[in-house]
């Protein structure tokens, strides 16, 4: 399915990452946005509120982030594409209904423009310290999909991609951007609608009475049941069976949780998106995501001038973690370096996958500013010693 030309602001624009996120959502056909103001994400809600009336969408400034997340789930079950955006403290509040979205297997998109934490932290300055919260923020076991754009252009594209993944895998998808990308203004090229591929919502072909909301399909991607069509289905945040009925025992729990995990882990090759540069034959590989993947580039260029065989992996998807690729590389390279604006979140996941097969280095800080490339360079020099 192609994007609707009505929704696509074709052309070359000068936008910041937040405005680009909003345009991405509109291009993807988002028709419900429930949001609550929070720095540094508010511009997304502002642009959506300005643009929605003429593209047939409804923007609602909700009473809080709990309601924002709840309302987008309700809207998604009502049959529209829905989204919310937030930052740090709001992300914490959304975790409750994010878990409901995971449990009900609801397609929708949540953008987190990360700022420094914990608590109120640094509202106006960047951070990447919500990455583990993105992975484990709601209680219980489940898998998530999280994307990290490095520019306004990519913010536009990844929000559309997030909508597509959410429809395909029938789950909320996270876009983990940050204050720096959100407030960085660059050229954004919005292509014509016919060049934007959208994944259509997968509704059941079966008749009412024959279809269940969590049908045990082979690929675990059960079609959704539409409301108001006589299916009279039930869905619940309680552990349930394929009928959506609550079943409170260990067997049902195993079936239910395995389903939430397997639908991501079994499709990991389809979901994981890495952009690799000079990785083949490299001695050192730097891994980074979001804005940090741009900040490390001068350091890599400098190291290359020194004759170091160095490559780089930009993680467009951070979750699910590219476990397979990291394990492969651990056998081949001398060292893997993770650069991120936190005190070691995705790094620990990398370190776990490496399992001592090569050296691992971490370059991080508490946030508030992007890295000094010189710090990355120093770590590269240390790694080649």
């Amino acid at each position, binding site marked *: 399915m192609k994007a609707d030309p009505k929704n696509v602001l074709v052309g070359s624009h000068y936008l910041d990452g937040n405005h680009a996120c909003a345009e991405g959502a509109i291009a993807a*056909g988002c*028709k*419900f946005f*429930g949001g609550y103001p929070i720095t540094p994400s508010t511009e997304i809600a502002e642009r959506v509120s300005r643009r929605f*009336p*003429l593209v*047939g969408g*409804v923007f*609602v400034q*909700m*009473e*809080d982030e*709990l*309601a*924002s*997340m*709840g*309302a*987008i*789930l*309700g*809207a*998604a*079950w*009502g*049959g*529209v594409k*829905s989204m919310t955006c937030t930052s740090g403290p709001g992300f914490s509040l959304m975790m*409750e*209904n994010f*878990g*409901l979205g995971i449990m*009900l297997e609801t397609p929708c998109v949540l953008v987190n423009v990360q700022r420094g934490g914990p608590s109120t932290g640094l509202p106006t300055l960047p951070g990447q310290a919500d990455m583990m919260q993105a992975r484990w923020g709601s209680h219980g076991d489940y898998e998530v999909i999280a994307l990290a754009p490095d520019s306004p252009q990519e913010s536009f594209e990844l929000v559309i991609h997030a909508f597509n993944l959410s429809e395909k895998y029938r789950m909320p998808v996270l876009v983990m951007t940050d204050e720096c990308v959100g407030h960085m203004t660059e050229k954004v090229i919005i292509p014509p609608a016919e060049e934007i591929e959208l994944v*259509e*919502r997968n*509704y059941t072909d079966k008749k009412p009475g024959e279809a269940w909301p969590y049908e045990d399909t082979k690929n675990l991607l059960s079609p959704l049941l*539409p*409301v*108001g*069509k*006589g*299916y*009279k*289905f*039930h*869905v*619940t*945040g*309680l552990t349930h069976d394929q009928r959506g*009925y*609550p079943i409170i025992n260990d067997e049902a729990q195993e079936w239910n949780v395995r389903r939430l995990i397997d639908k991501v882990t079994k499709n990991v090759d389809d979901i994981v998106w890495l952009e690799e540069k000079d990785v083949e034959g490299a001695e050192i590989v730097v891994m980074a995501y979001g804005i940090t993947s741009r900040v490390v580039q001068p350091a890599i260029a400098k190291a290359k001038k020194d004759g170091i065989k160095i490559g780089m992996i930009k993680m467009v998807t951070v979750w699910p973690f590219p476990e397979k690729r990291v394990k492969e590389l651990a056998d081949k390279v001398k060292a893997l370096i993770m650069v991120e604006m936190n005190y070691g979140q995705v790094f620990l996941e990398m370190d776990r996958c490496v399992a001592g097969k090569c050296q691992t280095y971490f370059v991080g800080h508490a946030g508030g500013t992007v890295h000094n490339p010189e710090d990355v360079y120093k770590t590269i020099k240390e790694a080649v010693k």
Partner: protein
Amino acid sequence: MITEVAQQKQEHPMEKLLRMDRIPHIWCPTCGIGTTVTALAVALEQLELDLDNVAVVSGIGCTGRVAGYMKLDSFHTTHGRAIPFAFGLHVARPDMKVIVFSGDGDLISIGGNHFIHTARRNVDITVICVNNFIYAMTGGQVAPTTPLTAKSSTSPYGNYEHPFNLPLLAASSGAVYVARWTALHIRRLTTAFKEAISKRGFSFVEVIAPCSTLYARLNKLGDGLDLMKFYHDNSIIKHGADPKDIDIEYQSKITVGKFVDIEKPTFLDCLNNRNKEVFGDKYKIYGGGNGHNRD
């Protein structure tokens, strides 16, 4: 004449509105929630609505289980968040009747903020709150509706916090229809449900219902039947009463009736009117989602 119905051929008239594969339900003997569910089922039947177009959304708690027993598109959401979920569902499908059916702790304590804001927006949904004065599912803790001096497992010496007056809260937040009945006033309750569901805008019905296992036991009030008898002897029907005057005190008279029934543009009316005013013909009246392309 009496027929004892064998289990294999049960044909209760409400069966088309209930998920019979899930009955018997989890509610205790002499709990009033089941009675309230019957009232809703009868109301829906009498309204002759297309039941495909009715959805019920519940939160968490004893009453939160209602969604699971109604044979409608039904959503059992998180604690306190039934209203925002229902709001999103309503905006996506304004043609559907969305009914929130939940308890006092769920809607008014943890979900209190959503309750007042959704009433403020006059969102066209119906909220049914079963008020049993206590957190029952978790074992009888004090609620924001527990009357002063009533005992609960976390107010063992008697509650000393002022409770909410739910009709006053709803009315002052902007609800266009507000009524209170007890589970005993079953026919008037059914009428109230019919009126609330038919009403355009945020309609609210509080149902005082017996919790035998916890509220009645902890306060030594007998069982649910004794509470029903109490409602019988102590309810005062006073339509149009000022919600300010209908606080519920411990084992006091309970004022019931229809207190608010006014007209006011709904959330979507206001959204459409404003946008039409600003954008003129460029604005297409919002009438719902784009999801169901399989018609």
